[in-house]
């Protein structure tokens, strides 16, 4: 068993240059890590190092900086594989973000395997990126798209899931953690249930990989995707993991250079997995930054990250309820079943007005529908506020948020 160590957020903040910036005498209270994370200096340095010292293309040059670039890029693939506990790094396809990874699966696996009257099951909790690609695919193929219902406490209704599995879907796609509410889904159980029903499973790990240990072999899913930019890495990095037999059989998604071994004017021999799926020059700098970010997180320990954010979430749920008694909190009421995401509304003020007021105190929160419009319809909220945490977040951030919310509520709520 891994020993869980308490994080020291002040020591961690020293690794993030943005906290040296002055915001009218205040330190930044960045509570929008679910949208994108801040970046540690080691990531910026790794990117700058590539751009300034060995900025060659990968898999091409026989000269030394080309070999350095290829080695650094491939090392990032290995690091991603280890971070997810994939059986082999060859099962890691480097992409630009989770959205691209899901589209890759939809276009490649989906267009080959989904046919007329087939069913795909997603959930009402999903980010738009795990809804719209399946809408386009099922519309094209005249197939069905069904959604697992969400209960009032923000958890998935497993009876509804069970009923949908009885329709024998070909694919089930759901988030590991909801970006809208922070709900940690019972993924292991849901994967087992799907497999029993004969479906393949895609797990969207965009909100899970940055915030706790992920082991794709223990989960037993078929596809797993995440974004680097939420994982302390630069935008433009991310990965798809899939079982080798699936990747071997899937046709290319995008085509061009890099993904080929032979091109003739009338026919092409595709490169082997994973290069078959990496057409064109990749975002090399971002991928190298992702490797540095995963090293940084591994140094902290993902069990420790999870415990830190669980503790902060518990603190936030308590302090917000105490400081702003009229607050409307959405999502699971306890921190055990939710990642470091707290979603809420004030009774008298619109989320955008609140976010504007908070911004004047250097407090960053998300206001809107967080790319989950169907979930907001379900919650009967046009928009909500969302505070989300990461390794650099601390209780002071939450105290500042709670005090500012109390003042906003007084300002808008006075008769």
């Amino acid at each position: 068993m891994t020993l869980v160590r308490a994080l020291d957020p002040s020591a961690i903040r020293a690794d993030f240059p943005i906290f040296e910036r002055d915001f009218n005498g205040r330190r930044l209270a960045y509570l929008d890590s679910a949208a994108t994370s801040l970046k540690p200096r080691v990531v910026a340095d790794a990117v700058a190092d590539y751009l300034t010292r060995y900025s060659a293309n990968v898999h091409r040059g026989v000269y030394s900086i080309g070999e350095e670039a290829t080695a650094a890029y491939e090392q990032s693939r290995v690091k991603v594989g280890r971070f997810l506990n994939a059986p082999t790094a060859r099962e890691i396809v480097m992409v630009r973000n989770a959205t691209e990874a899901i589209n890759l699966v939809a276009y490649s696996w989906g267009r080959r395997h989904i046919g007329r009257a087939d069913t795909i099951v997603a959930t009402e909790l999903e980010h738009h990126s795990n809804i719209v690609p399946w809408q386009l695919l099922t519309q094209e193929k005249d197939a069905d798209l069904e959604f697992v219902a969400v209960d009032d406490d923000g958890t998935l209704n497993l009876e509804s899931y069970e009923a949908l599995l009885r329709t024998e879907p070909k694919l089930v796609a759901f988030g590991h953690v909801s970006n809208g509410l922070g709900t940690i889904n019972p993924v292991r159980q849901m994967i087992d249930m799907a497999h029993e029903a004969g479906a393949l499973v895609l797990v969207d790990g965009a909100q899970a990989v940055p915030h706790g240990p992920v082991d794709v072999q223990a989960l037993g899913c078929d596809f797993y995707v995440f974004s680097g930019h939420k994982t302390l890495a630069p935008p433009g990095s991310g990965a798809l993991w899939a079982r080798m037999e699936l990747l071997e059989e899937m046709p290319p998604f995008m085509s061009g250079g890099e993904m080929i071994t032979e091109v003739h004017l009338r026919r092409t021999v595709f490169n082997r997995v994973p290069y078959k799926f990496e057409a064109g020059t990749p975002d090399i700098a971002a991928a190298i930054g992702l490797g540095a970010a995963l090293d940084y997180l591994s140094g902290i320990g993902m069990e420790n990250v999870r415990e830190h954010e669980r503790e902060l979430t518990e603190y936030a749920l308590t302090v917000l309820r105490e400081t702003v008694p009229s607050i409307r909190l959405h999502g699971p009421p306890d921190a055990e079943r939710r990642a470091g995401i707290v979603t809420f509304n004030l009774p008298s003020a619109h989320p955008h007005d609140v976010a504007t007021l908070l911004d004047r105190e250097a407090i960053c929160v998300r206001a809107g529908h967080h790319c989950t419009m169907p979930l907001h319809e379900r919650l009967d909220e046009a928009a909500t506020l969302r505070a989300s945490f990461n390794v650099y977040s601390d209780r002071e951030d939450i105290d500042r948020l709670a005090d500012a919310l109390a003042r906003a509520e007084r300002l808008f709520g006075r008769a």
Partner: protein
Amino acid sequence: MDDLYRDEILEHYRNPHNFGTLSEPDAVQELANPLCGDRITLMLGINDQGTIEQVAFTGRGCAISQASASMLTDQIRGMKLDEIARLDRDAVLENLGIEISPARLKCALLSLQTLRGALGERVAWQGATDE
């Protein structure tokens, strides 16, 4: 914190002027800002001389969008259509009298967009019946 949302804006937000509907409007337009869910429905009563005689709106959303609609509807009552055509974003921002960040401009200008839409619809409708 308080100086951004000055009292006049909060007052318009809490008790919007011209809030309601017209039973026989000459022009109607509903517009929404999908980013934040702001929504405004504007109804106009226009006389034969092309003057706005009646104006009403309903909607929900942030203080900036709703106060902006409240102020704009006050402003356009009694105005001629050609005067209204000259109303631009500066007129709306002048009404609000606060600094609007780029991210909130859509909230501030939703009422003006709705007004333009309502008049566009009326013109089209007139064209159709004149024939």
